[in-house]
């Protein structure tokens, strides 16, 4: 509700202001023109009368100016100045020195104009409009008109214009309110839906009837965000469920070992054995927890990757030496084809990846099989592959091997790496943090090959904040 009102109110305010300015502008202009026309009309009348007046007061041949005491005012002229009919015109005539030479009947008291420039000029004096003529002789003619009624008429005009303008303004505002409502209603609807989704059900989406307009764009962005949130929460939930499930096993072991030892009197050797078993189980838990924390750090984007120049070939050679006892135990052949593969990365983490892949290969390859470890340059970057002659991975499982806690078969795998089910997920996280890719190909009963590609060294890139 609040949203609608504030946008509507603002819209209304602006439109109202606009309408007000436009209407006021037009209204004023209209009124002014009308008033000017009226005044012009009056001025014309004043001119007409002045001319007649001047004519009437022209001295006869041989007559002196001051001697014109009886102006030759024709009846018609007189009519023009007669006050009985309510005719508001009047006149005054002064001689140069200030003596009044004549004036109309009932003319209002008018002092002689102080300004005595030769020629004609109009002026307003209170409620009177006056035309003044100063003759070359110094004689001053003044024709005036009471314009009170004109003024009243102009005020009435203004009033009616204002009233009309107000009416239009109100109408306009009403219309604007209606239009604003129509615009804000879908906005409010989107806002309501978004709030509901955010509060509760993240699987719902906002309706987007018009994806092209601004509201549609915002709605689409919101929907996308909700989808990402939904995925993130689902993954988190799954991860938590998986993690707590995985932890049950070692906890159960510790409990059973310890409770078993406490059931009845044991020999010291038996106690020691039970304690050793507890330690082993606790170490399994530790490995699992460490792996989980690692992954969590990668997820949150806070795991620092030290980028330094290194060579995958060297790292691979070291890892191969590390796992040699394991390969010998299973009489596995370890083929090494290690060409120089310089790259820019975290050698400890990359070694972790290589060791993990090797350990998996060793674990899944039956006795007397072959494991091949290759490194090479790859278009400016580096690549590494680990292949085995193990049972292979089924096609439907292939896309899921890098998932957390995914295992080849549903039971717990007793992998040499501790069987956490997180090994490949961690490899994936490390490789991605380097901007690289890790892929797998496999054929049932033939074997599997994991390939890691690292990009060419560019300037240190920021650790990606989110994993897709």
């Amino acid at each position, binding site marked *: 509700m609040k949203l609608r009102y504030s946008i509507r109110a603002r819209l209304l305010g602006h439109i109202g202001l606009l309408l007000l300015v436009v209407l006021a502008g037009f209204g004023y202009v209209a009124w002014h023109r009308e008033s000017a026309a009226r005044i012009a009309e009056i001025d014309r009348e004043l001119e007409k009368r002045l001319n007649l007046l001047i004519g009437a007061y022209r001295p006869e041949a041989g007559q002196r100016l001051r001697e014109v005491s009886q102006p030759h005012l024709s009846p018609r002229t007189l009519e023009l100045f007669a006050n009985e009919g309510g005719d508001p015109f009047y006149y005054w005539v002064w001689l140069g020195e200030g003596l009044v030479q004549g004036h109309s009947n009932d003319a209002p008291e008018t002092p002689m104009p102080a300004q005595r420039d030769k020629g004609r000029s109009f002026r307003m004096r209170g409620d009177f409009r006056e035309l003044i003529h100063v003759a070359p002789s110094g004689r001053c003619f003044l024709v005036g008109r009471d314009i009170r009624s004109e003024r009243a008429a102009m005020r009435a005009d203004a009033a009616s214009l204002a009233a009309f303008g107000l009416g239009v303004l109100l109408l306009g505002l009403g219309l604007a309110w209606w239009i604003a409502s129509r615009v804000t209603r879908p906005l409010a609807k989107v806002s309501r839906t978004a709030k509901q989704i955010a509060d509760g059900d993240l699987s719902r989406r906002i309706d987007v009837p018009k994806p092209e307009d601004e509201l549609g764009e915002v709605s689409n962005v919101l929907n996308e965000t909700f989808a990402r949130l939904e995925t993130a929460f689902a993954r988190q939930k799954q991860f938590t469920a998986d993690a707590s499930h995985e932890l049950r096993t070692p906890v159960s072991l510790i*409990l*059973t070992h310890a409770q078993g030892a406490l059931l009845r009197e044991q020999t010291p050797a038996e106690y020691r054995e039970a304690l050793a078993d507890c330690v082993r*189980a606790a170490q399994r838990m530790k490995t699992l927890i460490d792996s989980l924390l690692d992954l969590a750090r990668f997820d949150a984007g806070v795991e620092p990757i030290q980028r330094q120049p290194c060579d995958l070939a060297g790292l691979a050679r070291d890892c191969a030496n590390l796992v040699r006892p394991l390969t010998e135990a299973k009489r596995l052949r370890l083929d090494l084809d290690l060409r120089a593969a310089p790259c820019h990365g975290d050698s400890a983490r990359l070694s972790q990846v290589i060791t993990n892949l090797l350990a998996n290969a060793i674990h899944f390859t039956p006795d007397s099989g072959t494991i091949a470890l290759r490194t090479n340059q790859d278009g400016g970057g580096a690549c590494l592959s680990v292949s085995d002659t193990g049972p292979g991975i089924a096609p439907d499982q292939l896309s899921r091997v890098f998932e957390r806690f995914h295992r080849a078969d549903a039971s717990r795998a007793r992998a040499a790496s501790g069987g956490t089910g997180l090994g490949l997920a961690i490899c994936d996280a490390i490789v991605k943090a380097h901007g690289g890719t890790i892929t797998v190909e496999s054929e049932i009963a033939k074997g599997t090959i994991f390939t890691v590609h690292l990009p060419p060294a560019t300037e240190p890139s920021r650790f990606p904040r989110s994993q897709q």
Partner: protein
Amino acid sequence: MRLLIIEDEADMLRRLATILRAEGYAVDTAEDGEEGLYKAQENDYDAVLLDAMLPKFDGWELLARLRKTKKTPVLMLTARDASADRVRGLDCGADDYVVKPFDLPELLARVRALIRRGAAIAITRMDFGEVVLDTAQRCVWRKGEVVALQPSEYALLEYLALHRGEVVTRTTLYKHLFDENEDTLSNLLDVRVSNLRRKLGQDFIITRRGHGYGIGIEP
């Protein structure tokens, strides 16, 4: 009593077997669904402890196949504790369902209950006149005094007691008191019988020549 534990976690399997053997049970083991099913079908166990997640085929699958031929009491042991998993386990034919991590004394009590149920005995205390046996406490009294028995001796006594009034053949006793690792040609059984007779009275266990042993049967 002879038990079968089917569990793919080697540490857990070893430990449970040790604990149960210390309790006087004969214990066979299996590490995957295939081996477990084979043994469960081949032998008559008094109870089977079955893990749900096994290689080759899982616990539910094993149960379904086992139930076609055998009514052996089965206790499912698993880390999966969602209600749906419990329901599935019980509906597939499990007699009990215990979630890991479990409390060991509780697990042992449930195993005892399973065996009792299998032997169709509801009560835990058995009175044989002078001798009183409590299968819950795994204790024996003679004339009110506690009799110290080795776990293996107790196991034999319990089996005969649960089948009182019946003659139990030596073969049966061997099947139920010794696991596959024991040499059945040994005379361990006779040794145990004579020990029991020494502790509980010569007439307590009757020998039926050519047939076997029994409690509460006519000589």
